[in-house]
């Protein structure tokens, strides 16, 4: 009954406040609706529950576990009116499977047993942190639309909110809704984002608290190429006496959680669908990316090697392969799969190469697959060959184009940045980004590029007594896209700041990461940044439909436990 009432209220709100704001409100109300279910089974430290994606459940969703209370009976008729239920614990969804989900208890799980009734977002303490100063009315509507939540009053909630949006504050609530000028996020008590929505256009809402206009930042010098539309900022020396351009950039929105800690991901558009191949080093998941994430298939490479590289390859329209670079014990154990009917079909496994795919003609399809041998001293070997497949037979041929000496098939791309009609080769290696015209180096960045979790240590002479330990890193390839709409591609690259002193075989040692932009302008390359810095390594990157999608990964413990990833979205549309 309460569900129906909530939806009716939400619909009324839509009619009153206009479609844009209502869209956000409607979405959040729909997503936070109470959904009843049951605990199916305790599994290790978690519980299985009988709800899944088909019920609208997603990772991070919170359930209260019902403690049945005394029956409430009518004093005259004796009819059972209901029960005085309480809550004996909270569960948070960690993994959504087909037909059921995994959920971990928040707090002591002792009282939770098989058969317990659960209800999503029911009876939870909720608070609303408003960083716009204009969201009280929105809060009121939200509270009215979600009566199953026990809302903290607006005023006290603002008094206890942390100084910065996204910071973990002290709260007694189970659920926190955070409203900023950029977005609306639903977070758990630890600050982790469960769901994210565009910010409702509060300014359009009539309010007694009219927003105070924010002073426009002082612009040092307008960029000559479409500066108004550019979603990134380029490094420019400030003009004497001026203030440097420091406009705040919009942040990222969370699209979803792939379900494991991704160490490498790659994206491809196939039949108008956006697919992501992602690996945690052990499994490979193929997921469809839309408004959310849907897992199409999941495989383990034969022999259980450590997967470090994933590259989609489309040698012709309608034909999609996934090239997997993997390592086992003392040698490469890579594989090539054909993706067909939402399944990965092995073409060949236990291969000695590392793979990388490239779009040399700039048509948006990576038609070229290159294979590189593993050299025990250099890791990236000196033999690079072009791959072709006929049936299940792989052929390796000398590429018809020139490659630079420090070329690596991983962490590289080919794109015509200079507009001379020939693609340059871009390589991220050892923390540097190189751009080559043929074999000639035309640009080298500072040591701030890359920073991938896809790495492993290996022995240079595995049979020897005294052998150096080397390490291999497979970086996320840069992506070329016209970010500012000037008709020329810019380069979008994962960048990071890592410590100088490191044990690189074990850890990427990334202190912060961000998306760097490289633009060719006035016969030189100018570097800039897109969006904000993050504390997590970035393990996958693409630009699709005026959106930058990338994967941020919180690495697990050294023992391989825990860790998770989020697919983040940055809209280029303005």
């Amino acid at each position, binding site marked *: 009954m309460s569900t129906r009432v909530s939806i009716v209220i939400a619909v009324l709100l839509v009619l009153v406040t206009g479609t844009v704001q209502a869209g956000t409100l409607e979405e959040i109300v729909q997503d936070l609706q109470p959904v009843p279910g049951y605990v199916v089974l305790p599994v290790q430290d978690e519980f299985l529950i009988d709800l899944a994606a088909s019920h609208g459940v997603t990772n991070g969703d919170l359930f209260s576990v019902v403690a049945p209370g005394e029956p409430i009976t009518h004093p005259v008729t004796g009819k059972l009116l209901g029960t005085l239920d309480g809550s004996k614990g909270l569960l948070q969804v960690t993994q959504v499977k087909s037909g059921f989900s995994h959920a971990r208890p928040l707090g002591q799980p002792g009282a939770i047993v098989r058969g317990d009734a659960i209800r999503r977002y029911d009876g939870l303490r909720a608070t609303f942190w408003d960083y716009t100063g204009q969201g009280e009315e929105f809060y009121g509507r939200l509270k009215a639309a979600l009566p199953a939540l026990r809302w903290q009053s607006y005023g006290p909630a603002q008094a206890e909110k942390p100084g910065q949006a996204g910071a973990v504050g002290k709260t007694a609530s189970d659920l926190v809704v955070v409203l900023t000028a950029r977005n609306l996020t639903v977070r758990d008590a630890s600050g982790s984002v469960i769901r994210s929505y565009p910010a409702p256009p509060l300014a359009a809402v009539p309010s007694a608290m009219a927003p105070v206009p924010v002073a426009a930042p002082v612009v040092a010098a307008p960029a000559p190429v479409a500066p108004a539309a550019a979603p990134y900022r380029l490094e420019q020396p400030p003009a004497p006496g001026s203030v440097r351009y420091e406009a705040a950039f919009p942040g990222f929105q969370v699209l979803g959680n792939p379900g494991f800690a991704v160490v490498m991901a790659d994206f491809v558009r196939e039949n108008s669908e956006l697919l992501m191949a992602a690996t945690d080093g*052990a499994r490979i998941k193929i997921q469809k990316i839309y408004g959310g994430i849907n897992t199409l298939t999941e495989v383990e490479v*034969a*022999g*259980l090697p*450590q997967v470090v590289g994933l590259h989609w390859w489309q040698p012709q329209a309608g034909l999609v392969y996934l090239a997997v670079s993997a390592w086992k014990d003392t*040698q*490469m154990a890579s594989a090539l799969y054909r993706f067909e009917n939402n399944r990965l079909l092995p073409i*060949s*496994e*236990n*291969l*000695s*190469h590392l793979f990388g795919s490239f779009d040399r003609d700039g048509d948006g399809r990576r038609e070229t697959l290159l294979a590189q*041998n*593993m*050299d025990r*001293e*250099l890791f990236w*070997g*000196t*033999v690079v*060959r072009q791959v072709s497949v006929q049936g299940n037979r792989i052929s*390796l*041929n000398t590429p018809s184009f020139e490659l630079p*000496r420090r070329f690596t098939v991983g962490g590289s791309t080919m794109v015509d940045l200079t507009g001379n009609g020939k693609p340059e080769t871009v390589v991220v290696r*050892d*923390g*540097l980004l190189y751009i080559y015209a043929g074999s000639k180096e035309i640009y080298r960045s500072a*040591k701030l590029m890359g920073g991938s979790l896809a790495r*492993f*240590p290996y*022995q*240079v*002479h595995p*049979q*020897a*007594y*005294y*052998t*150096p*330990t080397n390490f291999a890193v497979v970086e996320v390839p840069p992506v070329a896209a016209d970010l500012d709409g000037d008709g020329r591609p810019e380069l979008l690259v994962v960048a990071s700041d890592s410590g*100088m*002193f*490191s*044990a*690189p*075989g*074990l850890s990427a040692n990334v202190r912060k990461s961000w998306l760097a932009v490289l633009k060719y302008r006035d016969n030189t390359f100018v570097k800039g940044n897109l969006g904000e810095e993050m504390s997590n390594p970035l393990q996958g990157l693409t630009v699709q439909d005026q959106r930058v999608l990338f994967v941020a990964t919180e690495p697990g413990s*050294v*023992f*391989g436990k825990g860790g998770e990833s989020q697919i983040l979205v940055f809209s280029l549309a303005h």
Partner: protein
Amino acid sequence: MKKMRIALATLAAVAVAAPAMALNVEWHGDLNNRFSYSTQADLSKRVVNDTHNYLSVGGFSNYSGILTSTTRPVDTKKNRKDSDFFGEIKYRMNLDVSDDDKKVKGVVGFEFGSAKFGNADMPFGGDQNNFELMWAYTDIQLPFDQASRLIVGLQPVGYNYTLWTDNAGGVKWVRKDGNWGYSLGWFRNDWGGANKNDAGGDKKSEYDDAFVGDMTYTFNNGNSLNAFVIFMDQGREAKTFANGGFVDGGLAGQITDARDSQIWLGLSGKGKWNNFSGLFTGIYLTGEVKTKGTIEDNFDREAYLFHGQIDYKMDKTTFTLGGLYTSGDKNPNDGKLKNFDVIDATTGFIGSVVIFDNLADDNSFTQAPYLFDKGYALLYAGARHELTKKAWVSARYLWHNTAEDLVTAQGSGDEVGHEFVLGAGYQIMKGLTAEIAAGYLIAGDAWDALSSTGKADDVFRTDANIRFRF
């Protein structure tokens, strides 16, 4: 201790200086904690040494003292208190300092150990002298040829796993371009500790010079072939025999000087074909040993080695079949030295626990792929199964033989025995593994000949380690 202070001062200086020089500093380690138990722990030590040149000439051999001495160090017969257990550390660390492009790299590496728990190097309180300089070299990309690198100093050597994989001081030029890679190297070795208190340069009788050339062709499919030649010569002057480390008084009494010149010509390869993978090595050894004294002659060397192994991967299980043959010297009176000799090899690839190196290496019966000058003939087969991504079990059978009969006063024969090995391992975290392997050797007649009674006992040995590599 002084060395230790110097090393730590170097590390500190590099670490402090590096930021100002915009260099990258990488820290690598191989921290190996090993444990071993054997029913005959007196055999868990180096009896046959890879750096020793075994000779039998004029009816005398330079190792028979091991077998006949009254304080017999080798007895394959189980004696009282032979069962024993040890724990040992072998910690290696190296610091690599390089520029951003890795055009120049300086490496300093140290080894702490090997030191067994409770021996003189590691009593309660520790802090004894068990420190070794392992690497100290500079690796430079040549400015006029980006494909070339010059490596100067005490550096890792990895020419072939059956012949020479260790460290050596010298200079090596390496070039890799496309499918081809090649190198030239010069290295110098001390002769039996003769230069302990002297610098080389005017003592040509007391060091070995090794000159190496090798060439590798990598096929498009990643398979490769490597051909190499190594010439090692003692120098112009004859070697004084007394400093040579030959242990048999009988041969020492016959020879006053010996000069050894050796040439190894080798071809090796490795490759993968679908689920099959394999590797092989074939080496021919030629050269001569010139002796002075009662036995004064030139003895030609003529020996060879072959090793091959094929692996077949079937889902989570890999099956292995391999063989090793090193020629031995059957007749000590024919004027030819037909036994194969290695420079500084490893035997861990064989997978034996009782005879060759395993998880507690440096503590094996033989460090070379042969027994004395009798060569070796070995067949092995096994399987390894991945239980999970982090856990595995393995099993292996090895049929050990010498190439020629091992003859002692207690008997003779060529069958060392049949060995059965079981193993398991678990990756605790990235770089950190725990492994255990246990071997049981059913003694053969050659093993019997190495006993004090003519009848050896079977041997059980188990090795384990917890190893952290990064």
